[in-house]
């Protein structure tokens, strides 16, 4: 069977790849959205932190025999803890300044982290084996579905839903949302806002690292894996509307699928399609699809 001259098998294959990329876009732009919401800082280090997650999983496996499942827990905690230290020692000093300084500082940090990993591990990628339980695949009749890829999509969407629930439906989330509206007022109610900010940054960073561990068996684990991806994620964030939780999840997945479709019908446009969509969205809705103008 064919659709517009493309075999169904190939079409679904590319859609699957698009869905996987979309999952990564969603988790990463969600982390950015959470951090931007409370800290008002574009975390340029996000790509590097995603890369650190993947590398920590790889180092854990090759040097310490840490299994994939433990890595999925340990790497985000470690990277999140590093994030907490960065927030406490550096980012905190910039809140009273123009937000651009936060962007510049995190850009500098990204260069440092990437530089260190380049020196330590070189620029060639390392491979990370798929855990045994998830090896192989399932034939769904119209497409062959590798189990690990299905797991990536499920895990990403689950993580997004958990984060959405935390922010929109719990007391802690209510504090968070109040903090984004008016930190001073919240503080006068006796809430420890600086601690809240620190934890938020840690959580956003841990999300990036979580995506990194998920990505390790799919892509090559290399020092520039983050900087390649993060610019696309920035475009996703602009399209979705910055700081919108729902916007980042929906746009992330949707754009991944659109990118996959483009790869089938107009392969040469697949790298630029997201940026083209960004331009169109900006012309029609400068605040993004789900964004509010500030």
């Amino acid at each position, binding site marked *: 069977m064919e659709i517009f001259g493309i075999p169904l098998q190939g079409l679904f294959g590319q859609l699957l790849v698009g869905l996987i990329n979309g999952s990564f876009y969603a988790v990463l732009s969600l982390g950015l959205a959470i951090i931007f919401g409370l800290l008002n800082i*574009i975390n340029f280090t996000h790509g590097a932190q995603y890369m650190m997650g993947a590398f920590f999983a790889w180092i854990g496996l090759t040097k310490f025999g840490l299994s994939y499942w433990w890595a999925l827990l340990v790497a985000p905690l470690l990277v999140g803890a590093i994030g907490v230290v960065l927030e406490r020692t550096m980012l905190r*000093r910039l809140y009273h300044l123009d*937000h651009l300084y936060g962007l510049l500082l995190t850009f*500098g940090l990204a260069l440092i982290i990437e530089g260190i990993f380049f*020196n330590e591990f070189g620029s060639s990628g390392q491979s990370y084996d798929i855990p045994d339980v998830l090896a192989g695949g399932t034939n769904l009749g119209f497409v062959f579905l590798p189990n690990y890829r299905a797991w990536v999509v499920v895990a990403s969407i689950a993580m997004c839903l958990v984060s959405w629930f935390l922010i929109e439906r719990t007391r802690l989330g209510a504090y968070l949302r109040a903090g984004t509206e008016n930190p001073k007022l919240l503080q006068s109610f006796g809430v420890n806002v600086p601690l809240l900010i620190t934890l938020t940054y840690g959580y956003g960073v841990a999300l990036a690292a979580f995506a990194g561990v998920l990505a390790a068996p799919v892509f090559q684990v290399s020092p520039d894996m983050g900087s390649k991806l993060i610019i696309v994620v920035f*475009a996703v964030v602009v399209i979705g509307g910055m700081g919108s939780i729902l916007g980042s999840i929906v746009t992330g997945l949707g754009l991944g699928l659109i990118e996959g479709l483009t790869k089938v019908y107009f392969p040469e446009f697949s790298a630029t399609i997201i*940026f083209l969509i960004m331009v169109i969205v900006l*012309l029609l809705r*400068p605040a993004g699809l789900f964004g509010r103008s500030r």
Partner: protein
Amino acid sequence: MARDYRVMALLLAALVAAPFLGVYPVLLMKILCFALFATAFNLLLGYSGLLSFGHAAFFGGAAYITGYLCKDLGAGPVTGILAGTAFAVALGWVFGSLAIRRAGIYFAMITLALAQMMYFVWIQLSFTGGEDGLQGIPRGRLAGILDLSSDLNLYFVVLAICAAGFWIVYRAIHSPFGQVLKAIRENEPRAVSLGYDVDRVKLLAFTLSAGLAGLAGAMKCLVLQLASLTDVHWHMSGEVVLMTLLGGLGTVFGPLVGAALVVVLQNAAVFGRWTLVAQGVIFVVCVLLFRRGIVGEIAVLFRRVTRPPRA
């Protein structure tokens, strides 16, 4: 103002004399090109408060156009540079029209994403040589007479063009136009309420900055006879931010000092493979401790020394 002119005259004299005192002209030209690039960038960030994270698109895009014209179409250096600059002006106008719809961090991210789009376009196009870039671009003869393959000849042409570019930016920031830019930087709603067409002024500044960045890129392409993906990569956009920040945002001479330092440090290879880390550390230190940059800090120090506290 008068002090600025004195510094400029001294600087120009030093630059004219430098190649005769044994400084390698190609290094000097590279510094000059990046100094013009950083000056153009500073017009935006330092004087208008607009952080463009996509200036590599203008710098590298112009380099590709100039390189292609001079190498494959046999154009002369003047045509090449003019075409590269014109391309950057046009691209700057398009990017500017899209980006100024949002301010602050949004503006930075939109310029970054647009520049990245251009990066993929350059990879796709056939004449750019893909990963290899354009190499061995001929420098040609200026107006058919002056042979530019001589480093010394080219040096004085580049010096003259860079000085003119620097002069344009200097005049722009000390004109009523520049005052409006500063007013927008300090308080945009107030500038709007005063009746200024803020978007038009911003777009004009953005296009001017893009054009001068393109001019710098076009000349860099002739100097090093090379145009490659490095020039359009977003690391290049970051590098020009670093130069400006290190030298001093919103200072006249800051970008020159910053560009010279960064280029010399890269060429001297003192950091070896730690260059990336060193750049990151300079970034972090500047943002945390010396937000005024080298020239900015010196200016403050100078004022403190010359103006004793009132009794």
